[in-house]
């Protein structure tokens, strides 16, 4: 192959892409769709349920304040601390629940694996930026809120290439 031929072939391969639709996901306008409602865990079988590992969701009616999530986090990120809550639940005598510092959390999900009472799961919410560090500390009341999600873009593959629409 001659040098000139090779360069022309290389240019030609690039020029073809002018006619192909763009692959880039235009993020703030478009958001990728994920499988399921976030990472969950079934303590009976010991196997998780596939999903995005985003912000946690805490079910106050299941939480017993056993601190297993906090213990699991101890050697990893030390993001989970147990705090007193002004709620009375039959199963939670000590009235303590996890509070998660997202400035430290690495989203490994081992706290979800540790919870034996179906109380702590993860959600598809990954947009957690804030102007202050203290706003990243989510109290049990904030963790109980179900996030509003509008993620609907999926990758489409056809003869003209892959695109996010």
């Amino acid at each position, binding site marked *: 192959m001659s040098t000139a031929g*090779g360069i022309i072939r290389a240019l030609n391969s690039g020029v073809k892409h002018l006619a192909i639709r763009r692959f*880039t996901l235009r993020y703030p306008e478009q958001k990728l769709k994920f499988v399921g409602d976030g990472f969950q865990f079934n303590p009976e079988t010991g196997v998780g349920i*596939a999903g995005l590992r985003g912000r946690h969701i805490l079910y106050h009616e299941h939480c017993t304040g056993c601190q297993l999530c906090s213990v699991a986090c101890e*050697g*990893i990120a030390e993001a989970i601390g147990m705090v007193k809550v002004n709620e009375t639940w039959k199963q939670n005598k000590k009235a303590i629940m996890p509070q998660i510092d997202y400035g430290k959390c690495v989203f490994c999900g081992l706290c979800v*694996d540790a919870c034996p009472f179906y109380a702590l799961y993860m959600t598809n919410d990954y947009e957690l930026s804030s102007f202050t560090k203290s706003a990243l500390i989510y109290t049990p009341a904030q963790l109980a809120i179900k996030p509003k999600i509008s993620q609907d873009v999926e990758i489409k593959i056809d003869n003209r290439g892959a695109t996010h629409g």
Partner: protein
Amino acid sequence: MTTQLPPGIKLETVDDRIMTLNVGPQHPGSGHMRLIIKVDGDYIVSCDPDPGYVHRGEEKMAEYRNYIQNVPHLERPVIHDSSNILYPYCLAVEELLGIEVPERAKYIRVIAAELNRCIYILYWLAIYGIFLGHSTMFMWPAGDRELFIDLLEAMSGARVTHAYLVPGGVRNDLPANFEERCLRQVDYLEKRLKEYLAVFYKNPILISRTEGTGILSRTDAIRLGTTGSVLRASGVNFDIRKKEPYDVYENLDFETVVMKEGDSYARSYVPYLEMFESCRIIRDAIRKMPKSGSVRTKLKPNPKGGNDEVYKRVESGRGALGYYIVSNNRPEPYRVKISVGSFRNLICMPYLLKGELLGNMPAVYWSLNYWPVEADR
């Protein structure tokens, strides 16, 4: 003015013709690593690699955490290849604790490892492209990498730090319709990879810069103890997936890519061809995988290893990656030693760069498949 030096310390005497250059540690082209290069005009006289700027004490940290808590931080050295760096750890801990892994989990692990290998190689290729001033080759692999990242995100729930492989299997089962989606995206990636040929690998400019530079002979490759694609590019047929098959690699259909030249071009071409083999493995694993069954063996809390030691290694994107774990009847390991391909391939640098043009330094350096963070651990 003369300064009295302490006894035993001498100033280095340097020829007037020789100039010392520090490449790195902040230079975007060197990674977090310094190359002390001495040049005579445009030719390199000697090169002294100086790693250690991102040492994070992973091995010491592992001694204070139990076998499950070690999983998230042990994948940090190479987040782009995080399944492969956890693979030998899981194999070693399973042997230490005597855990049986379900058959389906073994196949899922292989799929995760091969997807991750492709992600790593594409990222490496993107940087190799921009090292040589080829910005198209930076954009294309970085974009196509997104296809496989999406697949692993659906599998594990995280984009790069998956923490998906654990001792005893994998964290969760595959999502619904995963096989179909995976096959479609693997087919598409193979189609895209063929386009790289005309733009990059058959490009006369790339060939003139990499062919014949930094030749590592077969005997030198073995003598210096190199591994991975560097070893295979010098004509040694050695792949741990073939020679010491772990999990289900012996059932899968693939070949080892070997090239004889041993120059920068061969070292950059071998990982590219390996991506096709990875695609083959993924397709074969999806076909042979049991369609249902458990994917994780339940461990008792804080499992203890006996008075034992174990060494396991796998083929990562950068070569042999091994874990040597010693346990002493406690929930934490007594000692964890990680042996990585990056560090072992770094020793080639002084040999390969001697007599090269300074302009060829990036072409040789990044073809060694070197990852600074992994080398320091």
